[in-house]
C-alpha cells in the first residue's frame, strides 16, 4: 500500500522507510516561523539561550505583522526585543514592520518550498500546503523549545482526500470552495488530519490555493496540501526559485475519508457569526446591514483579491454607513496594486488602506468593532470577540462578496455585479 503526502514527508523527515497513522516520529523542521509572539517566546528561554544559544540561525523566520506599527509602549517594546534578538543571534530571516503578513512572506520570499516541513507558532502556518509544503501550527512553548533543540515530535495523521471537479460559476471564488467544505464537514471535521486537494486543481493559481490551504485549520486540519504541478512550478520560477524536491502522495495511498465536490454546484457563500462552519449561501442572508468591510489578511489579501475588489468598486462609492478597510498581504502586493491602479480605484471608492499586516483580524488594533456592529470580512475567523468586541458580529466571505456588499451597505450576492 502506498503512502499519503503526510505519511511520505514524515517518513522522509523521520528517516524511516514507512510510517503509519498514529505513529509518533521525531523530526527536524526546515523552518520555525514566529511573528510578534517571538518576544514572549524569547523571554521564556532567556537563561537557556544564554547557556546554549540557538540551535541554528537559519531555522527561525520572524515577521512582524500582528500589531504593526506598534499600538502602544508594550507592543513597541516587544518589537524592540525581537530586533535585538535578531541582531544578537544573527538570524538570517527577519522581516520588519511593513514587509507583510508572515504566511504571505514565507511563500512570496521563496522561503517555504515544496517538500519542506515547516512549523510555526501561528495556526495559519498550514497555508504553505498551497505550494506543496507540509506546514503546521504549534504553540509558543514549542517554538521556544525548537529554538534550543531544532527538533520535535509529530504524530503521523490520517489523511482526507478532497477531489475538486469541474469549474466555478461566475461570482464564485476559492473562498467559497473552502467555506463549502468547512460548512459540510464542520469546524472539527478534519481534526488531527492531513487534508489533500486533488482533481481539477490546475485551474487554480497559487493565490487561490493559498486561500484554501490557509483555512485548513478552520476544520481542524493539521496541514492542507496541493500537489505540485506546472502552476506551482511557474509561480516559483516567477520568484526566482527552481531548486526543490516536491513530494507527491502515492497513487495507491489509503485515505481515512474521500470527498468530491462539483465546483459548479457551489454558490457564493458566507460564514455567519460566531463559527466558521456556520455557512449559508449569500442569497439566503441578503439584506443584513453591515458597518465595516475588510478585504485582506493572510486568507484574501493578495493581488488577485484586490483586483476583483477594484473591478467591482471602479467608479462606485462605498455606502455611507460602511467603513471599507483594505490590507494588502505584503509590501510587494501593495506595490503591484499601486502600479496597476488598483489602490487608486479602492481609495477613490472610499476604501481605507491599512499597512500590510494582520490589522483588525485579531482584534488588537486598527478597526476594532463597537457593540452591535457587524463586519463582513475576507479573513478566516469569525469567533465571538475576534475583532475586539464580544457584542459585535463577524461574517466571512470572498473579496467579491465583500466589495459588492460594501457598495450596498448590506450583505449582497456578488452575482449582482459579477457576471
Amino acid at each position, binding site marked *: 500500500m502506498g503512502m499519503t503526502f503526510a505519511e511520505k514527508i514524515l517518513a522522509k523527515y523521520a528517516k524511516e522507510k514507512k510510517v503509519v497513522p498514529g505513529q*509518533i516520529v521525531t523530526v527536524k523542521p526546515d523552518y520555525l516561523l514566529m511573528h510578534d509572539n517571538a518576544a514572549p517566546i524569547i523571554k521564556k528561554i532567556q537563561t537557556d539561550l544564554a547557556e546554549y544559544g540557538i540551535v541554528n540561525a537559519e531555522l527561525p523566520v520572524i515577521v512582524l505583522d500582528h500589531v504593526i506599527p506598534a499600538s502602544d509602549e508594550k507592543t513597541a517594546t516587544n518589537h524592540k526585543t525581537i530586533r535585538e534578538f535578531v541582531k544578537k543571534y544573527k538570524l538570517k530571516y527577519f522581516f520588519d514592520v511593513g514587509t507583510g503578513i508572515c504566511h504571505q512572506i514565507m511563500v512570496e520570499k521563496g522561503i517555504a518550498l515544496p517538500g519542506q516541513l515547516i512549523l510555526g507558532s501561528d495556526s495559519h502556518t498550514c497555508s504553505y500546503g498551497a505550494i506543496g509544503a507540509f506546514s503546521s501550527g504549534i*504553540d509558543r512553548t514549542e517554538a521556544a523549545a525548537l529554538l534550543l533543540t531544532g527538533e520535535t515530535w509529530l504524530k503521523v495523521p490520517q489523511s482526507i482526500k478532497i477531489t475538486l471537479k469541474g469549474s466555478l460559476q461566475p461570482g464564485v471564488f476559492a473562498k467559497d470552495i473552502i467555506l463549502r467544505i468547512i460548512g459540510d464537514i464542520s469546524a472539527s471535521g478534519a481534526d488531527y488530519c492531513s487534508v489533500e486537494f486533488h482533481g481539477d486543481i490546475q485551474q487554480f493559481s497559487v493565490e487561490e490555493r493559498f486561500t484554501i490551504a490557509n483555512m485548513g485549520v478552520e476544520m481542524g486540519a493539521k496541514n492542507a496540501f496541493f500537489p505540485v504541478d506546472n502552476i506551482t512550478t511557474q509561480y516559483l520560477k516567477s520568484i526566482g526559485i527552481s531548486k526543490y524536491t516536491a513530494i507527491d502522495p502515492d497513487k495507491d495511498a489509503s485515505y481515512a475519508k474521500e470527498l468530491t465536490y462539483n465546483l459548479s454546484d457551489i454558490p457564493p457563500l458566507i460564514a455567519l457569526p460566531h463559527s466558521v462552519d456556520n455557512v449559508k449561501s449569500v442569497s439566503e442572508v441578503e439584506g443584513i446591514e453591515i458597518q465595516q468591510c475588510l478585504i485582506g489578511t493572510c486568507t484574501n489579501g493578495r493581488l488577485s483579491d484586490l483586483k476583483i475588489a477594484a473591478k467591482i468598486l471602479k467608479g462606485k462609492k462605498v455606502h455611507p454607513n460602511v467603513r471599507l478597510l483594505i490590507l494588502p498581504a505584503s509590501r510587494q502586493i501593495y506595490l503591484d496594486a499601486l502600479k496597476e491602479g488598483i489602490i487608486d480605484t479602492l481609495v477613490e471608492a472610499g476604501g481605507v488602506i491599512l499597512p500590510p499586516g494582520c490589522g483588525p483580524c485579531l482584534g488588537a488594533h486598527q478597526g476594532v468593532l463597537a457593540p452591535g456592529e457587524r463586519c463582513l470580512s475576507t479573513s478566516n*475567523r469569525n*469567533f465571538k470577540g475576534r475583532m475586539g468586541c464580544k457584542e459585535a458580529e463577524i461574517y466571512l466571505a470572498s473579496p467579491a462578496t465583500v466589495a459588492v456588499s460594501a457598495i450596498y451597505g448590506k450583505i449582497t450576492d456578488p452575482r449582482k455585479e459579477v457576471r
Partner: protein
Amino acid sequence: MKIWKYGDNVNTDMLFPGKYTYTCSTPEEIKPHLLEDLDSSFAKNVKEGDIIFAGKNFGCGSSREQPTVGLKAVGIAAIVAESFARIFYRSSINQGLLLIECPDAVKAYREGDSVSLDVENGKIIVGGKSYLFPKLPKEILAIRDAGGLLAYTRTKLKNKK
C-alpha cells in the same frame, strides 16, 4: 472541587480574547481574562483541582497558548472533552495540563455528579461509573510528566552536555 461545563467548539478567543494576546503573556497577566467572553464567572471563582467538561473540538482556533498556560496556572486538574483541537492538545502537553478525550464520560455527566480521576489507570469516574480514556504514548507522557516541554527540554539539554 467544581465542574465547569461547556459545549462544542469552545474556541481560543472564548478561552482568552485575542485583543490581549500581545500584551498578556505571564500566568498572572493571563488569569483575570481566562474565559472572559465565554463565562465571566470563571476567572473569579475557579479553584485549584476544578475540572472542565466540554463537547467536541475544545480549544479550536488560534495557536495562542494563554489558554493552556492560564488553565494550568489556576490549577485545573483536567479538561474532559469529546474531542480537542490539535494545537490546543499539543499545547496542553507542553504546559503539563491533563486533557482527557472521553466522549462517554462527557455524555454521562449530569450536574451534581461526583467526578474523580485515576490518571495512572486511565480512568475517570463520573457518578460512580468508570470510563476508560486512552493514555498518551510514553514518549509524549514523558513531556507532560516532566511538568511540560521546557522542563523536559532543559533536562535533555543538560544530559547532552
